[in-house]
């Protein structure tokens, strides 16, 4: 994905985060559009981590514009990106289910981290409150990530996928014959091309 497109996407996410998301809030819970976009790009695209500087700047600006303190959102986002990269190394990046598993873990991680940073600086927000909010965030963000992933996977240039899995020199294997958990793992060729 080109830098120009990344900048446009994060600028849009930033503006919508501050204007549209509050209108779509359900019981005060809003989707984290910048976080969702970052997770989808980093997970789905080879070299997607290159969007991180733009994502961090967008998160920092969102902190400046809407949050009480500047920094915690951007810091939590950057560390969450590390977790997403860890997931993408070990999972199939072209299937939506591993993407959703990554999103659940990453949103939970992000919320916990954000809460921990606030707690460290003496905010009184309780753990139970954070968990309640986190549940809502996960559901909301899953929906957003699913939509983003489906859009991006249609636009993404052809990459090595599980459709062509060669096992021990026995030729191409139909993915439908794979065991269910193998769908979550990167294909051999994907691993080789990454290496």
């Amino acid at each position: 994905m080109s830098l120009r497109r990344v900048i446009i996407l994060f600028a849009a996410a930033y503006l919508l985060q501050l204007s549209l998301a509050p209108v779509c809030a359900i019981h005060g819970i809003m989707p984290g559009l910048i976080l969702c976009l970052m997770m989808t790009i980093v997970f789905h695209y080879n070299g997607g981590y290159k969007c991180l500087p733009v994502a961090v700047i967008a998160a920092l600006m969102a902190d400046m514009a809407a949050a009480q303190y500047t920094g915690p959102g951007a810091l939590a986002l950057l560390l969450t990106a590390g977790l997403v990269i860890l997931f993408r190394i070990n999972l199939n990046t072209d299937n939506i289910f591993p993407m959703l598993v990554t999103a659940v873990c990453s949103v939970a991680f992000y919320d916990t981290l954000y809460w921990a940073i606030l707690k460290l600086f003496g905010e009184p927000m309780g753990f139970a409150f954070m968990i309640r909010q986190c549940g809502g965030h996960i559901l909301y963000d899953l929906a957003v990530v699913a939509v983003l992933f489906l859009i991006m996977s249609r636009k993404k240039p052809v990459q090595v996928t599980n459709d062509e899995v060669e096992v021990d020199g026995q030729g191409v294997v139909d993915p439908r014959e794979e065991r269910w958990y193998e769908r979550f793992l990167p294909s051999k060729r994907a691993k080789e091309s990454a290496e």
Partner: protein
Amino acid sequence: MGWFKTHKRAAAVIGVCFLLCLLTTFSYSTAGSSTLVGRGVQKVTSVIAKPITQAATGISNFFTGVFSYDELQKENQELRDRVDELEAENLDLQLTQQELEELQGLYKAFDFEPYRAGANAVAGRVIELDLSKPYVVFTIDVGTEAGVAKDCVVVDGNGLIGKVSETGKGWSKVVSVLSDGNSISFRAVRDKTITGVVNGDGESHLEGYVIEEKMRIIKGDQLITTGVGLYPEGILIGTVDTVEYDDDRQMKVITVSPTADFEGLQKVVVFL
């Protein structure tokens, strides 16, 4: 140093993390007040985000109306009934108009109340919410151009919302009573001698204590501001949820539900 040279990406990430930690610490040490850059970002964002918010609110209201047609019909009927009742009530009130004018004349004679009826106020629309702490901090679309200044008091139709923590042209950041940094002196409506202080719990309630331990504050008591400190007298704060005696502090500790409608918060009034 050699490690940093060979691991440039990792070094960059560590450096950015370190910078963000510093920035967060600085932000907390200045109690969240914006820098020049922050103010610029806030100003530009509010200009761009305002029309999007308005459009989205309009669309949201339209769909809400479409999907709750039956409910709206029912509400419409209830409102018609209510209008009939109020018209009848209005007739009675007209009889006491003369008495009311006398009271207003008496009221104006007292010039100590800073926020008496007719005081300058301006209405604002909520345009941005903090994702992590909704309704603890939010931004409204009126600012210095309308005369809003730091520490102006913000209310809605139901009660006290909070105070302005920062302001600029076209925007103001409001810290609500739910924030733990907001201490409010209160007295009970039922018994004026019951006084105390409440603070936000950072989530959705207020916590506080009663100054005189012997005072009988009870669940359901309505609390209003006393006029001591920033907030003017007589604004409804909330309703007492629980009353407990804290042995350690040897005082009655209370939790309070705010009367202001934070979840449905769209418009607020700022006292200038």
